[in-house]
């Protein structure tokens, strides 16, 4: 970064003369070094998946989760500094819980994303704090909008997506997400694509020699809680965030690995000919 040493990056909330906020940009860099997270908004639910790099073989498999349950119907996947993500989800849980106390109902995912965006943005304003070193993908299903997927960045900006990706493999993941017809996918199809995309994103990066665990959750509406199914098949109702069943994840991973091998073979043939 050319502007290093100019002094405009020493304190939070200080602009450089060309209108940049360096502390926020550094926070974004921290996210870019974290394991990949993706989210898929399908027509009948949302899928969240993360590439969890194994820091040590001594860790218990399945520990140090990076996708958290915020309320029955909302989950958050995070890339970047894990402790920051913990604080972010803790705040999100408080927002969801206080919404329930005040309005006797589940918080709409858009409102939660909006509030979390405001909260994150406040951490770019004061010299006594630093910005969040995480980008969080918030996925859930509510009665009003049905499945919805939001991504909140360290700057506090938060947008709604059909497919979202962050972390070190985000470029490859985004390229793959763009190929999908997300509005018409079911969550079951979404799970397979998510597994494949995480494997592609992992292979595309510097950390590819490291082992990783695939962590995957979904938010779906139980049959009894469906409020409305629109003409295009979008299911609205009280969603439920839970881990994708083990068998499904294993099957999706098997297929993902197979698809990758086939791709590699084709690449080799191309090179030979």
């Amino acid at each position, binding site marked *: 970064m050319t502007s290093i040493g100019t002094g405009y990056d020493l304190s939070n909330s200080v602009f450089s003369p060309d209108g940049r906020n360096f502390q926020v940009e550094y926070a974004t860099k921290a996210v870019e070094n974290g394991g990949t997270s993706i989210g898929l908004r399908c027509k009948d639910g949302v899928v969240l998946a993360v590439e969890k790099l194994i820091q040590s073989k001594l860790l218990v498999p399945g520990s140090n*989760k990076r996708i*958290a*349950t915020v*309320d*029955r119907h909302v989950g958050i996947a995070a890339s970047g500094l894990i402790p920051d993500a913990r604080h972010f989800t803790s705040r999100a*849980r408080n927002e969801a*819980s206080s919404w*329930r*106390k005040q309005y*006797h109902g589940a918080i709409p995912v858009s409102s939660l994303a909006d509030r979390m965006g405001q909260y994150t943005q406040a951490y770019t304003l004061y010299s006594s704090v630093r910005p969040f070193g995480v980008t969080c993908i918030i996925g859930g299903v509510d009665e009003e909008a049905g499945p919805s997927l939001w991504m909140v960045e360290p700057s506090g900006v938060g947008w709604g997506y059909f497919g979202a990706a962050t972390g070190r493999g985000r470029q490859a993941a985004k390229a793959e997400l763009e190929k999908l017809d997300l509005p018409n996918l079911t969550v079951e199809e979404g799970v397979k694509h998510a597994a494949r995309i995480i494997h592609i994103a992992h292979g595309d990066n510097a950390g590819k020699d490291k082992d990783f665990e695939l962590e995957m959750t979904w938010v779906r509406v139980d049959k009894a809680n469906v409020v409305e199914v629109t003409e295009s098949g979008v299911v609205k109702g009280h969603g439920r965030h839970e*881990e994708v069943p083990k068998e499904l994840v294993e099957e999706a991973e098997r297929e993902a690995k197979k698809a990758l091998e086939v791709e590699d073979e084709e690449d080799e043939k191309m090179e030979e000919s």
Partner: protein
Amino acid sequence: MNHLPEAWGRPRDDVYGAYDHSHLRPSMPNQHTQEPIVTGTSVVALKYNGGVVIAADNLASYGSLARFSNMERLKQVGTHTVVGASGDISDMQYLFDTALEDLVIKEEYQNDGHHLRAKHVYSYLSRVMYHRRNKFDPLWNVLLVAGWDDGKPFLASTDLLGTTFSAPALASGFGASLAVPLLRRVCPDEESVAKISRERAIEAVEECMKVLFYRDARSTNKYTMAIVSGEDNKVDIEWKKDVELQKQSWKFAEEIRGYGAQIV
């Protein structure tokens, strides 16, 4: 000019007279709940060899007025437990819709494969009840907690004082006097639970609901029943909603003075 800031912008005492502060301050001490307002009557529950049967009618009374006739008073908490409440309906709604919902959602944060079992829900509820009684602001209910816990049927009660009590056959309210003796004929002690089948337990609870409807003036003929079973190590909760009492017989009424046709 009055130099005290608190008097600024207020009507002048010398023109309008001193301000009557009694409008601001209540003349009575702060009162907590002294009596329940809208109430539900008995909850009845019985253990059997593979689980627990629990039932409560669907009436919420306002004094002696049958005010709401579709008020369900049983709630499933998590996967292993059903809670039934008699007494104040608004306190029940606080417990069911706010406190227990919050408890279950927060338990799911951990995502460690563990779930709240009946014993845990019961412990939580009895602590809340005792805490509120110590604040002299009790939740005016008697709660029955039915569920499957550690490979055994679970049934226990707590009340507005935070008293805890457990037995293989329990009933709250009017049912504590009328239903419990009937249930104890079927199930006198913990040992006899093993001999009671699911069908026998349902039949006994149905019979109690009928007797309660005959004799309890705050009851109705429509009720909700839940059967928590733990057969083959799989917990299952079967719901029977809006059940109407079957095969009523009011013959006994004829012989009772002040009940049905008068006999001098």
